[in-house]
Each structure stands twice: as C-alpha cells, then as structure tokens.
C-alpha cells in the first residue's frame, strides 16, 4: 500500500511540475529574474500547492495513522540556526544558477535531458559531500 501510494504520489507530483512549468529551468529563471522581464507564474504554483497542503496537514495533524496504517510522520523540528539559513542560501544560489531544484531535476532527467543528468549527478555528490564531511556530528 505504501509502495503504491509512493509511486502514485511521485507520478502526480511530477505531472504537476510539468503542467506548472517548473520542469523548464528557463521558466524558473524567468520567475527569479525580478529585475528583468519577470514571469510571476511560479508564485501561483506555490499558492496552489499550499492551498491544498494547508487542508492536508490540518487533517493529518488529527490522525495518528495514515490510510496505509503507517504512523503519521509530521516534522516537529523548530530549530532556527545558521545551518538552516546557510543551507537555504547555498540551495538558492544553485537553484538560480542552474534553474533546477531537486524535484524538477528528476522529472527533466526522466525525460532524457542531458543537462539534468549532469545536474543530478552533481546534486547527489553534493548530498554525499554534506553527509560525509559537513554534517553536525
């Protein structure tokens, strides 16, 4: 059940990214280019996602278990520290340079886009680099 739900959610998520325009790095950069010819479309992606998300999390908070019987794992970390901000700044810089964030990069990789393969390989290396040498021990 969890496996099927994982696959279905990923597929739906990916289709949403494609429809929204997020799978095109140029569209993402158009949104980030405030000083150029700014394309506000991606603000609506956030708005749409959050509109549904708010309801989903409100329901989930009252339930101890998911439909599959798995425990409801809602994050409860409230720490605000330099790593949270620094991580956001590094991520945002990379996002602005390439126009890819993790989800759309996987979708673009699936479509056979060579640039996405290069990006994803480097991203996985970056994750390992962090977990091996930069993580708080």
């Amino acid at each position, binding site marked *: 059940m969890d496996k099927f739900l*994982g696959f279905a*959610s990923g*597929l*739906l998520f*990916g289709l949403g990214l494609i*429809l*929204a*325009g997020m799978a*095109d*790095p140029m569209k993402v950069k158009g949104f*980030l280019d405030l*000083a*150029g*010819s700014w394309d506000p*479309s991606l603000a609506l992606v956030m*708005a749409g*996602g*959050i*509109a549904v*998300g*708010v309801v*989903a999390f409100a329901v*989930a908070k009252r339930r101890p278990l*998911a439909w*599959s019987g798995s425990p409801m*794992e809602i*994050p409860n970390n*409230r720490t605000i520290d330099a*790593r*949270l901000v620094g*991580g*956001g700044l*590094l*991520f945002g*810089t*990379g*996002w*602005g*340079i*390439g126009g*890819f*964030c*993790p*989800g759309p*990069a*996987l*979708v*673009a990789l*699936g*479509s056979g886009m060579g640039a996405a393969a290069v*990006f994803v*390989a*480097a*991203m*996985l*290396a*970056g994750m390992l*680099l*962090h*977990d091996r040498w930069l993580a708080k021990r």
Partner: protein
Amino acid sequence: MNWTDFTPVASLAGGLLIGLATALYLLGSGRVAGIAGVLASPLRAVVGGTSLRPDASRLLFMLGLLLAPWAWRLFAPLPLAQVDVGIPALLLAGLLVGVGVRMGNGCTSGHGICGLSRFSLRSLVNVLAFMTAGFVAVFVLRHLL
C-alpha cells in the same frame, strides 16, 4: 512584468496537482513529500550499505517523478525545457543544491510546499533564504556578469 510567458492557469493547476500529490503521500503514507529527503534517505542507505527496504516508498516516489514525463507523453507533447548555462555551471549548481538542501534539511517541496502548509516558522526562514539567494544569483548572472 513578462505577460507573454505568464501562464497563470497552467501554473495554478500544476500547483494544485502538486498539492494533491503532497496530500496523497501525507494522508496515505504518513510521509512528507520533500524531494530532498526522498532522495537523501535511500542515497544514505546505498552508500552506508544498509537495507533499502525502509526506503521502498521513497524509491517508488522517485520512480514516479522519473516516469512522469513518459506518462505526460502518452497524452500530449512535453513542453520545451532548456538550460542557458554550460556543464561547469550545471555541476556547480548541482553541488550547491545538494549541499544546501541537506544542510537546510529541505528544498522547494519540503520547506516550500509542506513547511509553509503547516505554518512552520523554521520552513519560512529557509524559504526566505533560498528565494533571496535565487533572486540574487539570477540578478548577478543576467544583469551584472
């Protein structure tokens, strides 16, 4: 404002679909659909040589993302997707994103969609950091360099 490329209906509809996918994963499996976490957890297992069994649903989520363009192609041609930087910049971008999402423990989906949906101040701080950095990076690349 760029009105010619503005796609309000498609982007809002896409956002709603992303929200539905997030809701399905959360209410169905009890998991937060943060792509950085979906990727990082099985990656740790592979590198650490531990069992991938606990990550089965994450791996299938990933597979769903990878197959989404193929599902799309069954019904319509894929929209154009392009990059405007070369391989060295893509490698740098990937490294920064990989390190950054692990250090900040989330990305556009985990902190952006999920975190803001549950009114997490921690996520809001991260989102403001990555949005600011994204705006600055594009400004520097397109208007200063």
